[in-house]
């Protein structure tokens, strides 16, 4: 099935069989797989050259984590969108990747069509999420509200965002939530995306403050 606007994709995974299988699937679905990488460093080098629309990111890489690779790729190619494709269940590391700038998360057991749909959504700037990830994000906002960083108000969710994240965490699809709240499908997705983005901004502010405090800012 050829896709309108076939995005350029980079696949980052240290498992060669997986990397190749996923790349092949994506090509069959009409995506343009412009690069593959096995680790953080190779992902950084290649992303700097090919500037992919979407990066499919594994969480465990030979020379580091998916979070490190996400940071590295966004440094050299800020317009790229990161979709985490992990064999692990949603745990702290996925949350870290989202804070580093990933906008989606999918388990590796997802089917070929689910994968294609997720890559497409990520390329279009939509957030791809699972109930588990929504639970993590909700928990993170509540953690930050309880222990605010010095000197700045912690990022918080609007009532609507909290409502929507809770529905997602309870397994409702964006469509079901849209019906329940009489919103458009797109609005629901935008709200979820906003919750991700605020986490990323907060994370960047926190990192910058840490760097200044510790004199690490070059």
């Amino acid at each position, binding site marked *: 099935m050829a896709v309108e606007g076939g995005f350029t994709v980079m696949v980052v995974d*240290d*498992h060669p*069989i*997986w990397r190749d*299988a996923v790349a092949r699937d994506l090509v069959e679905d009409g995506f343009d797989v412009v690069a593959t990488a096995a680790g953080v460093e190779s992902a950084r080098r290649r992303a700097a050259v090919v500037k992919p629309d979407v990066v499919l990111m594994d969480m*465990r890489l030979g020379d580091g984590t998916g979070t490190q690779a996400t940071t590295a790729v966004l440094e050299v190619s800020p317009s790229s969108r990161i979709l985490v494709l992990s*064999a*692990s*269940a*949603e*745990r*702290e590391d996925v*949350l870290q990747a989202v804070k580093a700038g990933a906008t989606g998360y999918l388990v*590796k*057991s997802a*089917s*070929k069509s689910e994968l294609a749909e997720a890559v497409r959504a990520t390329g279009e700037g939509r957030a791809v999420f*699972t*109930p*588990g990830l*929504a*639970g*993590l994000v*909700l*928990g*993170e906002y*509540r*953690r930050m509200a*309880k222990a605010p960083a010095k000197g700045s108000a912690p990022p918080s969710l609007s009532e609507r965002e909290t409502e929507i994240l*809770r529905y997602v*965490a*309870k*397994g409702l699809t964006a469509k079901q939530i849209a019906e329940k709240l009489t919103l458009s499908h797109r609005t629901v997705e935008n709200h979820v995306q906003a919750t991700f983005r605020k986490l990323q901004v907060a994370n960047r502010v926190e990192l910058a403050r840490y760097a200044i405090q510790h004199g690490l800012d070059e």
Partner: protein
Amino acid sequence: MLSERSSRGTRESSRALAPDPATPLWRAAQVFRLLSVIYALGFQIAVNVDLERPIAAWALFGVLVAWNIACAVAYLQGFGRRAMWVAVELVVVVVFVLSTATVASDQWMQDNQPWATTLWATNVTISAAIQFGPILGMGAGLVVIASSAVLKDSISVNLGRHATIVIELAVGLAVGMAALTARRAHAELERATRLAAALEERERLSREVHDGAIQVLALVSRRSREIGGPTAELGELAGEQERALRRLVSAGSPPVPVGAEVDLVPLLRSRESDRVSTSLPATPVMIASATATELDAAVANALDNVAAHAGAGAHAFVLLEDLGASVVVSIRDDGVGIAAGRLGQAVDEGRVGISNSIVGRMKWLGGSATLSTGPGTGTEWELTVPRGSARGS
């Protein structure tokens, strides 16, 4: 792999030979032994001329010194730290005390302590207390008292003037408690160390399973579903195993109570299955153990309800939220729900009985449980428990 196993073997065997946690006590006891022998020597020098058989008394004192050297070596080296040696020491002490009758007159014995001195005899009270704990330590102290009472043919019940009995009991109790505490602390530390090692091993295993088996199973399941036909069935099997393995390695360790509190996150994560997803925060949600037990049981009730009544293929989602002052657990399913007016049927099916039990549990915790349902929209339980409200224990 092989080298790891053998290294674990050495660790195991070295634990068997691990130093006795009471070793510092044994060392201190031998210092006391030395001082008590010096005291006995001073006593001997002072009273020897008054004895009936002074030369025999000096000979006995020589035997006492030799015996003490043997004891000190045995306890310091460790081969004396056993029931048999301590029992022999007790017998030897009693014999030395009673031997006073062979070197001194009855009158001398009435006026004095045994030639070996009560202070020296206390050594066996200490040994027994370290070896066996406070009860037998005090027991040995009583034996020491009894043997000197035999010499005098009387026992002094005037505790105000003769505090020996009290001192013997106190030494046995205090040293015994110290030994007991040292051993308990050591056992606790050892347990914690073993737990940490087990966790580390699990983490390593999880990484390996993760990087290998799970990835391959996921790939097999994916490919075979695409090929279709009978291969798809194989893929289904591979997929099941992949999910089961993932749950296994991500289940982490069983919740370890921290004081009176327990982390709800691993507790609820263990409820994950093919038909149950969990949405949990990344940070621990600590709650009183009793509350956690009830809450977990209520979640289990709700999930049982889903499995029994929501229909085939229904999926349940468990969401845990920490609101600070309270903890909220939502259990939602995407099954058939309960249609209005069919509550009666639901009662017959036993669904309401379970519901009552969920509500009861939450009320007991000072919280609340609300059920929302409708035809085709599944059911949703929202369980709210205030923090620090666990009644009873």
